[in-house]
């Protein structure tokens, strides 16, 4: 009898825990403190939807780097330095034992 009661208690405990966490509130992320609402200034003149910036406007910082293979020097931050290489990245063909597939970085 005691065993059964203990068993029921454990089942109830896990059941409650599971049912609580099963519910995924689509707005759950909204409770996270990192949402930027506080930092976004409200523009009363802009009542339209999405803002799409003009096409072809190259930012100053973006226009500067013409990425060349010479940049592919290992640094503390390889993904930033290896843009040109990443476009065609890595390897390969066939080894003696297994097929190796071309791998592309998504940075």
């Amino acid at each position, binding site marked *: 009898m005691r065993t059964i009661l203990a068993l029921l208690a454990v089942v109830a405990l896990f059941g409650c825990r599971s049912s609580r966490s099963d519910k995924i509130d689509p707005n759950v992320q909204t409770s996270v403190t990192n949402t930027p609402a506080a930092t976004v200034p409200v523009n009363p003149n802009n009542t339209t939807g999405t803002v799409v910036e003009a096409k072809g406007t190259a930012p100053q910082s973006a226009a500067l780097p013409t990425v060349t293979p010479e940049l592919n020097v290992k640094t503390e931050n390889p993904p930033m330095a290896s843009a040109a290489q*990443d476009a065609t990245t890595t390897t390969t063909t066939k080894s003696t034992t297994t097929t190796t597939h071309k791998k592309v970085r*998504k940075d």
Partner: protein
Amino acid sequence: MLRRFVSLAFVLAFAASVAADTSTNRLLLNAWPGEQTKKVSEIGRGIGVVFSPDLSVKDNCHFYEALGFACFQDADWTNILAGVHTFNLLNPDRRIGTLILETHGTNGNGLKVQAGYEPDSPRSYISVGALQERLEADGVFHVVISACNSGRLLRPAIYNRLDPYCGDKLFLPPTNGIVNAADDFDPRLSAVMLIRPQSSHIETTLVGTVAELRPSTRRALAAAAKLRGVALPKEFAVSDMLVQMLTRDPYLQLVTGAHTDDLSAEIRSQQTSEQLFTKFVTHLNRVALRERPAAAKKTMVAKKRVPAKPSSKSASAAPRR
């Protein structure tokens, strides 16, 4: 004594099953519930995939369309968003509820789609806030970010409006523009959930060939492609993360909402990616195998329903015993 042992075993088994039901599993249950799909052509039902053109291969989308996904490949986010909108309008029975982004993360400075790394290549960026704002109206409620350093994309400073002057060498000229959220967009009110891997690192894709699949799987895929009105390509690109989600990889940890400031250079080894690719091939083969017996059974039933008439003229027409 025996009764106690059995009870203890039962309790332990129950506890183990509850522990296995992680938040990642629950997220996937909502975002991609078709785990036990029985048809190759239904694997991606309800899921849209967005590919940056330079991460893809020729006719890659045809491969995903054959698998039942909606697929978008463009270097302009406005075209992609319009594509999602149109798809959900024209396919009410196959609406996209989850969008997987196989795009660049620009070191966590913006979601980027581009044709190449040349400065004048077609290229555009979008903020995560803009995605939430635009996709909610289309009924897309889960966005899975399979891009590098995805945790940095959710930083408050660039959540709604990207910073094109961030100084990052990967932030190349936005020749097709930048899509930002409206100034008054409040992500706290959005129903669109942004899902990303817990460890914000370098994500990768592998390029495989259809020839690596079993002949029966290829036949099932070819039939599925025909059903969608597309031709099956020879190659396809698949990301590690997509494989992990599809196969419910126990190592996959997904989170929603939180951001990180850290830039990570961590990347999976080639060997691990190869193992995931093998899992993908095995999964497709298994689904095709599940599909095939059903088709064979139907053929047998059809044959049984039309028994051969015994004829005195041709003895060979009689069924063999």
